[in-house]
C-alpha cells in the first residue's frame, strides 16, 4: 500500500513565524501535491511538484513556498505565518504525469494565533 505521511497532525504557531510542513511518500511517486482544505471550499491546490527540484504553482500559492530536494519528500513553507493560513493542509502523491490516482496523507491541522 502507498503510504503518505505528514510530520504533524496538529500544529499551533504564532503570527510571523516560519512554518515547515513535511510530507514523505514511500512509493517512488513522481508527483507530489500540497492542498489546503477549508469548510465549504473543498481542496485547493497550493503547489505541486512533478520531479525533484521542480515545482509549479497551484491555484493559491501566495504566502507559501515549497521544496523538493529528494523524490520522497515535499515540504510546504509558510515564510511568515498569518491567521488566514489557519487551515487543514493535505499532502498527496501520484505515480506519473497522467491523471493517476492521488494518495493522501492524514493532514496537518494548523492554527496560527
Amino acid at each position, binding site marked *: 500500500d502507498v503510504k*503518505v505521511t505528514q510530520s504533524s497532525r496538529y500544529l499551533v504557531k504564532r503570527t510571523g513565524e516560519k512554518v515547515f510542513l513535511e510530507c514523505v511518500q514511500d512509493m517512488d511517486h513522481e*508527483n507530489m*501535491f500540497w*492542498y489546503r482544505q477549508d469548510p*465549504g*471550499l*473543498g*481542496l*485547493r*491546490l497550493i503547489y*505541486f511538484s*512533478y520531479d525533484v527540484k521542480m515545482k*509549479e504553482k*497551484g491555484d493559491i500559492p501566495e504566502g507559501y513556498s515549497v521544496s523538493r530536494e529528494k523524490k520522497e519528500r515535499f515540504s510546504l513553507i509558510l515564510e511568515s505565518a498569518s491567521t488566514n493560513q489557519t487551515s487543514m493542509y*493535505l499532502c*498527496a502523491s*501520484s505515480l*506519473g*504525469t*497522467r*491523471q*493517476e*490516482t*492521488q*494518495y*493522501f*496523507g*492524514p*493532514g496537518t491541522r494548523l492554527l496560527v494565533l
Partner: protein
Amino acid sequence: AQSVTQPDIHITVSEGASLELRCNYSYGATPYLFWYVQSPGQGLQLLLKYFSGDTLVQGIKGFEAEFKRSQSSFNLRKPSVHWSDAAEYFCAVGDPYSSASKIIFGSGTRLSIRP
C-alpha cells in the same frame, strides 16, 4: 478550464437507505472523474474513478457512480448505507489532455447517517 460542482452541502439518510450524491462538471470533452471519501480525522481515500469505457463504475465499499455525458454528471450511489459511511465525499475532475497531474475538487458533501 474544468470545474466541478457538488450542489448538496450536507445530506442525512437513514441507515439501510439508498444514497445518491450529486456531482456536475464543466469541461469541453470527457474529463477524468473521481470520487474520494474523507472519514473524520483522516486523509482522502479514492472510492472510484472514470477514465473511459463503461459509464457505470464500481468502487470500493459498495459504491458505484455513473457517468452521464448528456447531463455532465457523475453521481455517486450506494444501495444501502451503513453508519460507517458517515464522512465527507468529494467529487473531482481532471483534464485528460494536460501533461500535469492536477485535479480539481468540488466543495464536498457531508453525509450523516440517521440510526
